[in-house]
């Protein structure tokens, strides 16, 4: 039996290096299969999604992933049209959705929501973003992209820039990188440094430096991971305006970077990467989005097939 069969995907912390590698190998396999073979992997299975927060990429990515492996999707992508507006609890909604589907995908504004959902669901739950806590499938996608584009993860120098306080993709990526021998450099405005209550665990697995100056290590980085300032999570607009547009990655910055360095972004992007960067060899965020479809397809294939695929 494959170890991911019927497994919840709640936190990237639940995966070790060997398990991540297994997902990456399965992703490579899916990418090489022809569409007809691929559609056999989850044929007849249904993915149920519950999105309590807006999402374009992640939900569509799961939809596209499930379709590519032959399954179908149904669910709620807009809270305002659902019975939760009538006061239904998350627990009840999850229980009902797990009747209609073989695997559940949940995005919710509260931290810990996916772990709670996994306790009440009769089907495996995949966390597609829980508050500011985690976004594990994004981290798997990010790690896969680094591995694919740089041919390795160990030994790299990785810069993470932007909103490190509220960006859940940052926490999941850092926890994921904790499995590798990497140098991490965190760059953010003072007010958006990573949360001290999360550093405790990250520090046990990863060495990192922090600064507010993007120029400091830019010429050493192999990977620059850029994040959006999470406007929706700021307590007030004024605080957001103070840090809005703090960093912009443009062509001038690229000239200072290593020739073979890559730039990643979980998307959506606002103004933190100027569009003229898109056409350079450094820009890999659209490939990253494409790999996201395949890493999710691989996860679904592993979760739904007892003997893998």
């Amino acid at each position, binding site marked *: 039996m494959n170890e991911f069969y019927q497994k919840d995907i709640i*936190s990237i*912390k639940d995966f070790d290096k060997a398990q991540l590698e297994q997902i990456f190998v399965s992703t490579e396999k899916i990418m090489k299969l022809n569409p007809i073979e691929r559609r056999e992997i989850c044929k007849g299975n249904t993915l149920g999604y519950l999105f309590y927060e807006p999402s374009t990429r992640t939900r569509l990515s799961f939809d596209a992933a499930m379709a590519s492996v032959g399954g179908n999707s149904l669910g709620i992508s807009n809270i305002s049209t659902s019975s939760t507006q009538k006061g239904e*609890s*998350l*627990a009840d909604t999850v229980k009902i959705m797990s009747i209609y589907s073989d695997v559940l995908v949940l995005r*919710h*504004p*509260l*931290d*810990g*929501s996916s*772990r*709670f959902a996994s306790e009440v669901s009769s089907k495996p739950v995949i966390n597609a973003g829980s*508050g*500011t*806590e*985690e976004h594990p499938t994004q981290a798997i996608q990010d790690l896969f992209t680094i591995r694919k584009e740089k041919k390795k993860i160990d030994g790299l120098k990785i810069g993470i820039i932007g909103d490190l306080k509220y960006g859940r993709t940052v926490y999941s990526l850092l926890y994921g990188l904790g499995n590798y021998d990497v140098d991490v450099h965190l760059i953010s405005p003072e007010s958006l440094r990573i949360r001290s*209550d*999360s550093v*405790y*665990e990250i520090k046990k697995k990863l060495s990192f430096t922090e600064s507010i100056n993007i120029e400091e290590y830019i010429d050493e980085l192999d990977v620059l991971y850029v994040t959006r300032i999470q406007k929706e999570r700021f307590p007030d607009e004024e605080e957001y305006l103070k840090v809005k547009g703090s960093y912009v990655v443009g062509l001038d910055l690229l000239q200072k970077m290593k020739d073979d360095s890559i730039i990643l972004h979980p998307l959506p992007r606002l103004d933190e990467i100027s569009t003229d960067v898109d056409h350079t060899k450094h820009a890999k965020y659209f490939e990253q989005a494409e790999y996201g479809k395949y890493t999710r397809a691989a996860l679904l294939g592993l979760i739904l097939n007892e003997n893998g695929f």
Partner: protein
Amino acid sequence: MQESELMVRRIKEGTVLDHIDEGKGLQVLNALRIDGKDGSLITIALNVPSGKFKKKDIIKVENKFLKDDDTNKLAVIAPKATINIIKDYKLVEKRRVSLPNEIDRIFRCSNPDCITNSTEHIESVMDVIDKEGRVLKCRYCARVLDVNKLKYN
């Protein structure tokens, strides 16, 4: 019994919480909901000289024996405390407190955005990830919690 403990009246049946960290006595009373409303004799001594830890707090409560939840609270607030069970004026049991691997229900997660602080029917679970350092982690939101900021359910 040491001289310092004789400063307060002996109890017939009940519990003596000794070696409470200096200044934590009132917090322990609050956490254990010891308020004297049931008419039991309660004696509190704060800043009692103690050779071992310089100063300590002591609480004597008649007719109260700690439940597991109370012991766990005590272990978090005052890790050096000892629990002395008194029956017929005699000390029949003495034990130190120790943190369990997990603490259920008794504390609220200090992260306001944690699912355990929502309207869902869910009880808090804290994992003790470092017993010596008294480091607790919410099992749901995974935040590492400051034991001095925890609120009791």
